[in-house]
């Protein structure tokens, strides 16, 4: 306990920092206890390492002319592409002579970029709308909830398939579109429900009585209290984003230069998917990568779930 | 032979922060048809004892010793299958906040019939007749049998839960705070009803409450609990007029008396101890005005100081030490 005289001397930011670190420690302990959360985190870390390793390898061991994920070509194996795994190419080469491992590592970057950006946009939009709807209620609420119903009605991938003819979908635009579309969907309903539980708390009433404006209350009270849940759903959104991009790329509907989905698409359009076991290095590594990354983020999400929702904890 | 004889029951909860010494060497007995009340502050272990008797403790509870003899059979050692047969039939329980004791998706009558048919080989028609009888007993209209819990008021739900506990005519009913969630008038009515039913069916009852006024109304004997220990147990009159334990005395003086002279209410200083690290020796010593070195070093024995009057204290009040 801090002695009363010391209270006057400790600066506010120091106190805040201390409280913050303490709650972080507690939450980390809970996260760790969930067991599955750390597994997911571990897998994500693995992919981050993969992502970091690529430029290092390109700068040191790998000759860019051969190993570039998009324009590389291995002359030595001319006529034998796609070549099976060997020492030079641990995961073999693809139909047009590029190193599969290099592609895999490089695509990690686009997956992360896309996933995180899209999820971030979704969560920001969802949080603001959820908080506003909860606070104001009435017609604002009705409009956005109806909108959410409508958005949820649309099969996501089907919609994107059409949109791609309208908008030239490269990585960032895709992230933006996915982020915005998801942002108005189901997440607003969930976050609004959460915001409602905050809104009825006595301190909101107190803040109003003290003269807080709507903007102030929403920003300083409601939003911070729904952020944990929003952060949680962000994980699930990353899963969805990566998955969607992979599917669309697989069907060749996107304008991205290289991603895991594109890798499989290249294999398929060159006709190598028919004989499954023969050219396994063309579809198994990217397929596994997509699955693993989605899986990892989902696990992290579920791990966070036990932190945010005490009922799901072990005790 | 006593209906229920508990002998040095000890039980801990294992938590992330350590072991919570919830129940410590508690001993008491209940005779057939007797009504005993267990009183104490929140968190003193009363509910834990009740759950321990029925072996309904959560997973992190550890049973550490003692025995629970129900009609001569030690409940702590019998297999789960046998225990199941006793639950609801030999001993049944009414929980705190009985509002939530009823499953919302099934009809109330069906839930009571379920209780009956689990233990007694009775067909549906006969079971329904029994439920109707039970309803009359607790003061509910029999037609309500076919309604859902959300159609009942709080008091009605409480009565339904009582009816459910009575369904198989158990020898002992444990009622954990049966009236806490109700308003005072309904409280009174329910208590009288419970007591009336008990007398009629000659059942034993264990009331658990933090409200001593409630307990006093309906119990023949009272056990006082503090920090997981049973510190005193005697018949109601003795507890009120001649309490021997300092804690009991303090409880009594926290009561205004309508008839007696006006005096200042004395609140007990301090707080109940943290059961993660209970005090050494007598757990009451930090707050006891009469505590001595012995109290700090040694746990007092639980002894019968007069016929029917049990006490765990080094310095009984009004009897010299």
């Amino acid at each position, binding site marked *: 306990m801090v002695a009363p005289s010391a209270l006057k001397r400790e600066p506010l930011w120091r106190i805040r920092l201390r409280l913050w670190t303490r709650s972080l420690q507690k939450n980390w302990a809970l996260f760790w206890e969930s067991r599955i959360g750390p597994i997911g985190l571990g897998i994500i870390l693995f992919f981050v390492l993969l992502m970091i390793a690529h430029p290092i390898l390109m700068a040191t061991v790998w000759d860019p002319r051969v190993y570039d994920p998009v324009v590389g070509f291995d002359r030595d194996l001319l006529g034998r592409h796609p070549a099976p795994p060997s020492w030079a190419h641990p995961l073999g080469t693809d139909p047009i002579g590029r190193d599969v491992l290099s592609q895999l590592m490089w695509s990690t970057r686009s997956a992360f970029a896309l996933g995180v950006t899209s999820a971030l946009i979704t969560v920001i939009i969802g949080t603001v709308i959820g908080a506003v709807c909860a606070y104001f209620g009435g017609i604002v609420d009705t409009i956005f909830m109806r909108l959410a119903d409508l958005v949820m009605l649309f099969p996501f*991938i089907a919609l994107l398939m059409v949109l791609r*003819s309208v908008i030239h979908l490269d990585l960032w635009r895709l992230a933006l579109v996915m982020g915005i579309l998801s942002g108005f969907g189901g997440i607003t309903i969930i976050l609004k429900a959460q915001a409602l539980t905050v809104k009825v708390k006595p301190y909101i009433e107190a803040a109003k009585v003290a003269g807080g404006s709507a903007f102030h209350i929403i920003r300083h009270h409601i939003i911070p209290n729904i952020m944990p849940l929003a952060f949680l759903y962000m994980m699930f959104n990353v*899963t969805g984003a990566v998955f969607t991009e992979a599917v669309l790329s697989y069907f060749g509907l996107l304008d991205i230069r290289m991603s895991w989905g594109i890798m499989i698409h290249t294999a398929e359009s060159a006709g190598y998917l028919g004989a499954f076991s023969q050219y396994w290095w063309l579809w198994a590594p990217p397929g596994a990568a997509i699955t693993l990354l989605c899986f990892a983020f989902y696990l992290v999400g579920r791990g966070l779930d036990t932190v945010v929702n005490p009922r799901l904890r072990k005790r | 032979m006593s209906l229920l004889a508990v002998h040095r029951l000890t039980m801990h909860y294992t938590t992330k922060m350590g072991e919570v010494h919830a129940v410590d060497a508690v001993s008491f007995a209940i005779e057939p048809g007797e009504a005993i009340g267990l009183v104490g502050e929140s968190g003193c272990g009363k509910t834990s004892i009740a759950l321990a008797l029925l072996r309904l403790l959560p997973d992190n509870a550890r049973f550490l010793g003692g025995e629970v003899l129900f009609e001569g059979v030690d409940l702590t050692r019998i297999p789960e299958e046998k225990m199941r047969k006793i639950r609801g039939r030999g001993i049944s329980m009414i929980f705190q906040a009985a509002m*939530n004791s009823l499953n919302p998706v099934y009809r109330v009558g069906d839930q009571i019939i379920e209780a009956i048919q689990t233990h007694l080989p009775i067909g549906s028609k006969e079971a329904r007749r029994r439920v109707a009888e039970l309803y009359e007993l607790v003061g509910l209209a029999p037609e309500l049998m076919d309604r859902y819990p959300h159609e009942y008021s709080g008091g009605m739900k409480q009565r339904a839960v009582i009816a459910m506990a009575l369904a198989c005519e158990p020898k002992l009913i444990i009622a954990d705070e049966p009236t806490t969630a109700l308003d005072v008038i309904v409280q009174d009515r329910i208590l009288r009803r419970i007591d009336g039913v008990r007398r009629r069916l000659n059942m034993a009852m264990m009331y658990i409450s933090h409200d001593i006024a409630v307990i006093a109304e309906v119990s023949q004997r009272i056990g006082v609990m503090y920090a997981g220990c049973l510190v005193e147990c005697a018949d109601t009159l003795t507890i009120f007029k001649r309490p021997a334990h300092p804690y009991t005395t303090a409880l009594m003086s926290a009561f205004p008396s309508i008839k007696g002279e006006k005096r200042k209410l004395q609140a007990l200083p301090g707080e109940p101890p943290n059961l993660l690290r209970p005090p050494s020796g007598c757990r009451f010593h930090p707050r006891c005005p009469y505590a001595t070195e012995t109290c700090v070093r040694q746990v007092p024995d639980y002894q019968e100081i007069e016929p029917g009057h049990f006490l765990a204290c080094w310095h009984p009040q009004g009897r010299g030490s």
Partner: protein
Amino acid sequence: MLRYIGWRLAQIIVTFFLFLTVVFFLFQAMPGDYTKQFIMNPKIPPEARQVLAQRLGLTGSVWDQYRNYVRNVFTGNLGFSFQYYPREVWDVIKERLPRTAVLFLVADLLAFALGYPLGKYIAWRRGQISDYVVTVTGVFFYTIFTPLLAIILLFLFSHVLGWFRSGGFLTPTLWLRPPVEPQRVFLLLTATIVGLLGLWAASFLFTRRIGHPRPRAWARRGMVFLALALAVLAWHESGIGRYAWDIVWHMFLPVAAVTLISFGGIMLLMRDSMLEVIREDYITTAKAKGLPDRVVRDKHAARTALLPTITSFTIGLGFIVSGGIVTETMFSWKGMGLTYLEAVLQQDFPLAMGCLTFTGILVLLAHLVVDVLYALLDPRISY
């Protein structure tokens, strides 16, 4: 109850209307006036083009076209498909829709049949190894890259073991000169499945008389089993059983794929829901009544936990439909999903719009069915 359904239907119509509007303007935004596309189709003789253009309301301003479109949809006229000209969109959809419907119906039921009990058991055994293993497995199947799953299934069962066909709807050689149209066989098959389902649902009502729960459950199972046996017998005797079986044979893998994916989701939902319910007081009370553990779990906990699971499941319907597109494509299962993808790729906009519209209708109806089901199952909901 009827009023409730009526009210929900009204809401659905409004939502559908909005949906339609968005679909229309979405396709309007396509680059290159698609009407020109249509008109440029070499299969259409020049004279007919004008007539068609007028008939389809391809002339006139956007607003006129919109009004026409809406009117047409509500009267069932969805236009002509570019790809399959002169087949009407509605005709194509009529053919493909049942296939998707059956695929998803069967797969979802199986997923529920698997996910519900598993979620139930696993929530009951909190914190033990089996809990983690099953949860992780569920998440795995839920997040697996669908084409990867399809490839693995095809590889394993079709390529290696040779048990199932590698996709498609039927074996061409078998159907060279069939006595019956494949579509007809398929529809009969659908009718059988739906009939069996209806019987299963009805069996709950029929067996209500039986007092005790155990014999009641067996009576239900007995009824369904009997019906199934009769159905198989009927098919066998009818002479076209072979053909029906061929279609069922082809259904195995796509159904397996969709089931695996959905089952993961349902199991996780059920587990989460159960964990919440287990904390409730009425569960402890049920135990205190002396009920066997299994009864407490199944009759009290699971039944109550089912309700939120159903709601959450409905929310995920859009995702499932999207997944359907991928699955159907991988297995060459000619249903709505595959049709939609092809239509989009071939720029057959009327067909694409029609598919999307229909999907919207189906999802909305599914919502309605689920709502009604929920209202029936939860006595707290009054209607």
